[in-house]
Every structure is written in C-alpha cells, then in structure tokens.
C-alpha cells in the first residue's frame, strides 16, 4: 500500500440511473469513496442499495451515469478495477458442494494467486480454521457469511463492498465481523462500503454514511457530522420548576420544552453543559428527581430523514 494516499478517491459514482421496466430504481445517484474510510450505506428495502452495488460489481448495467474505479471509467478500467475489489452481493457466492478450503482455492485460481498458506490464513482470520474441510452445504448462514468475507479478501483488495454481510450472524458473530472489518481497515487501509439494516452496528463501524431513499442519495456525511446532527437532549424533573427555569435562562438556555408531569427537555450540543447544569442546580439547591441525557440515534435520524413509517418500511 506504499504510495497510496488517504483522501484519494478510489471509487466514484456519477449520476447513476437504473430502470426496471417503468420502475426507476436508482435515480441520479452520485457519491465518492475515499481511500481508507468505512462507508455505511443505509437505505430501506428496495431503496436501491443492492442495485447500485450490483452495478459496481458489473452484474447490472446502468441506464445512464458513470462508475469510475481507481479513476478509470472505461470498460477495461472497470474490469481491472474490479480485480482490486472484494465483493459480497446479498449472499456470498459459494460452491456449496465443495469445502470452505476448496472454495478459497478456487477463488485463488480465479485471481491467479499462488500463495500456498493463504487459504489457512484467511480461514483462521474469519474463525473457520477448524471447519475448512467441511462441505459448505453444512455451514450455517453465519459461517457462510464469514467464508464469503474470507473469499472477498483472497485478492488482497483495496476496496471491500459488502451487501448485508452481518445478515444471519449471531450477536457474537456480529461483533467478530465488526472487529475483523475494523482490523482490516486499520491494518490494510482498506476502503469499505457496507450496507446493513442493523444501523446500530453501522454506527459502531462506519466513519462515513451514505443514505439512499427511493433510489436517490439523500444525505452523505461523516460520523462527526452525524453526531452533531443527532442532537442530545437533557431531560430533568426539578422539584422547584420556576427556580430551575430561571437558572437555565441565566445560563443562556431558553428553548425549553415542557414534557408534562414536571419534566422539561432542552437541547444539549456541548457535553460539558451536563456537568455545569448539574453543578449549578446543586449550588442553587434545586432538587432534581430526574436528570438524564437523551441522544438521538442513527436509527432516529434515518427515520426522520426518510419520513419514518409514512414512507415505506420502518426499521
């Protein structure tokens, strides 16, 4: 990876359109992936995530628009670029009658890789070392997903595109895959585009987010931007409400919502406020029967952005 710079655009999608019959599945989608970042690709079922990934993989052709991999959008350039990518689209592509070991050997042959110890190394990496000789047809969904990841890593890719890779994994498996992807990103400076319905998981993994709704990219942002957009609220229940409101006003907090039953809520964009407000209430001898910080999650933000339950399937 010598000589490779972060901030380098490794993959770019410009004005992509895809129609199936009269159904416009992808509508003018544009985004860029920078080297070394992990992108969470978020959207409802049918939003167009998998269709875009399939076009990136070369399984489907866009009706309009352009895909550029490593700065090359020619047919040959895309074909060469894809050799430097690892992919899992929906379910891993596996020869189910063969063993995990044979599947990796076939993938090695596909890329012309001669490294003898690679299969064992990758199976160990994804926690399948002990079952490498077993036929894949006997594998659980989680084991297949892990094998799919191992196969996607055979060609030592620079970009990893994973469509729902944690589908069917148990909680331990989800943690293991997350740790694995973070490790790969850290150690190999791997760019990862990962779509998932488990938004809490993406929040722990991704450094950037691309949100798609009804075929359109509706938001692109970094984790920091997401955090700043996901407002924190302080919720408190003071025994002496007038004294508490007066104190908050004096501290410059004027937009206060009344939640009923003696609860009030106000925005907290600076975590230092929490300690200051609690200390001030203590100093003014205002007894608080409830004091908590409420943060809006990625799920809440996503639901708010795409219109919640009124706009298709909720998460």
């Amino acid at each position, binding site marked *: 990876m010598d000589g490779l710079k972060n901030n380098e655009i490794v993959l770019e999608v410009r004005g992509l359109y895809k129609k199936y019959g009269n159904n416009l599945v992808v509508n003018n989608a544009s985004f860029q992936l920078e080297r070394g970042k992990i992108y969470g690709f978020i959207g409802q079922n049918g939003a167009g995530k998998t269709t875009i990934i399939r076009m990136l993989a070369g*399984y489907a*052709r866009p009706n309009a628009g352009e895909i550029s991999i490593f700065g090359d959008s020619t047919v040959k350039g895309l074909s060469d670029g894809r*050799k430097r990518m690892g992919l899992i689209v929906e379910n891993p592509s596996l020869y189910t009658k063969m063993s995990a070991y044979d599947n990796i050997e*076939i993938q090695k*042959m*596909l890329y*012309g890789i001669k490294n003898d110890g690679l299969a064992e190394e990758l199976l160990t990496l994804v926690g399948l070392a002990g079952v490498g000789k077993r036929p894949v047809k006997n594998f659980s969904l989680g084991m297949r997903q892990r094998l799919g990841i191992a196969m996607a890593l055979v060609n030592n890719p620079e970009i990893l595109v994973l469509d729902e890779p944690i589908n069917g994994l148990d909680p331990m498996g989800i943690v293991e895959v997350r740790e694995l992807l973070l490790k790969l990103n850290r150690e190999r400076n791997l760019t990862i585009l990962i779509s998932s319905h488990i938004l809490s998981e993406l929040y722990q993994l991704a450094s950037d987010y691309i949100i798609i709704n009804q075929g359109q990219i509706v938001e692109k942002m970094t984790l920091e931007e997401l955090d700043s957009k996901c407002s924190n609220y302080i919720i408190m229940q003071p025994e002496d409400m007038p004294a508490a409101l007066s104190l908050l006003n004096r501290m410059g907090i004027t937009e206060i919502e009344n939640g009923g039953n003696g609860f009030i809520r106000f925005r907290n964009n600076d975590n230092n406020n929490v300690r200051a407000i609690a200390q001030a209430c203590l100093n003014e001898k205002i007894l608080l029967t409830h004091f908590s910080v409420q943060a809006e999650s990625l799920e809440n933000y996503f639901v708010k952005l795409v219109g919640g339950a009124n706009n298709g399937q909720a998460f």
Partner: protein
Amino acid sequence: MGKLFKIEMKKLYKSTAMRIMLIIVVVLSLISVASYAFIDSMGNELVALTFKITGHDIYIALLQDNSDTILLITILMAILIGSDFSARTLQMQLSAGYSRMQIVVSRFLSSIVAFLILFALYMLCMAGGITAIFGFGPEVTGDIIGNLVLKTVMCVFMSFSMIALYMLICFLLKSTGSSIGVCLPFMLIGTSILQALAMAFKTCKFIIELTPFGQIMLIGEDLNNLEIVKFFAVGAVWIIGMILINHATFKNAELK
C-alpha cells in the same frame, strides 16, 4: 481464460453429477452388451440371421446416433450452469474481471472435455464389450481404421455444435430444472419430428441438412470430399454462431 478453464476442470473433477454420469455410462453399456450376449446365447437361428452384430457395427451405429452421450452432457451442463447462476458463482468470475465471452467460452470448453470423457468411455465400453464377445467384424486394415477415425472426428465435431446449442439454452434459462425441461423433450421428440419432416418434405430436408441434426445422420454413409467439407462447415458455423448468440444474450443479461 486459462484460469477459468482450470477452475471449470476442478469443478468437473469435484462434481458429483459428473461421477454419476460416468457410472450411468458404464452401467448402460454393460446392460446393452449383456443384452446382446443374452440374445445371442438363446441360440435362435432366426435371431442369429437378423441380429448379427460386431464391434465395428456398434461403433458406427453409435457414431450415427450418439444421443445418449449428448443427453447426459446436456443434463450435466444444465446442472453445472444452473448452479452457477443460482449460487452466483458466475458473478464471482465477472467481478474478478473476466469478460462474459471468456465465461461462455470456458463453459463450452469444459463441456467439450466432459463430453469427450463420457463419449470415450461409452465407446470403449460398448464397442470394446461387443468386440470381446462377438469380434470386431471386418479385418482391421489401414482403410478401416482411417474411415473410423474420420467418422469419429466428424461425430465428435458435430456433437460440439449440438453442445453449443444446448449450452445456449442453459444460459438463456439460467436454471437447471428449466434447462432440462426444455432440452430433453426437444432431444427426445424434437429430433424425431425433424427426421419425419425431412422425409416428408424436400424443403425441410434441405433446411435440416444445414443443421447438426441433419448432418450427423449422414455419418454412416459414404461421403465424398465435398460432402465432408460441407459437414465440417455446417458444424463450424453452428459452433461459432451458437457461441456468438450465447455471448450476445448473456452480455446484456442482468445477473442477480
């Protein structure tokens, strides 16, 4: 391309379907040879007069009608290509940077290898078995061997064109069940209909002679040089044509 072909060979080597096909070929041949031996052992004079078979006869007969091996190879292709689509292993090759033409050609070449193995085994078991029991027939001369080699090459070559046609169907239908469902009735009924049409109408005969089905029936006849050239030309046009049509349809196919 070489890598894809090697992968196809590995798949074939590991394929349970291929092993079953090999067993079927051996069992089928043994049953046929045993039944000929049984009929002969009955000692019926009438049967002996009308039913005199030799290794040479059976070899020529199998070259004229090798529908058994074509049927087996079509089922095998339907299984392998169908599972490539359903398990998305074809897509894996696309994302590894291989062109759709390379994918189609590698499948064709591996099908040819599988066919050659099945064909050689079938011929060996049938003609070998009959020769062992009833003898080869004519005296083995250079002319006889030359004629058998030529007819074998013709049969194999024309079989390639049929394989190309059935592979096109497998690629178009993308599913094992559907491919078998379309190919088998065509092989079992369709070819008989073509033969009947060829006998009934001159125009049909002319058209059918431009297909592998029409040409392969001519193998048993004494062909002049022009007819042999026509035979190979028809086969080559079909092979190239089917592969190009296959590529053209697969090129625009949306893969899931």
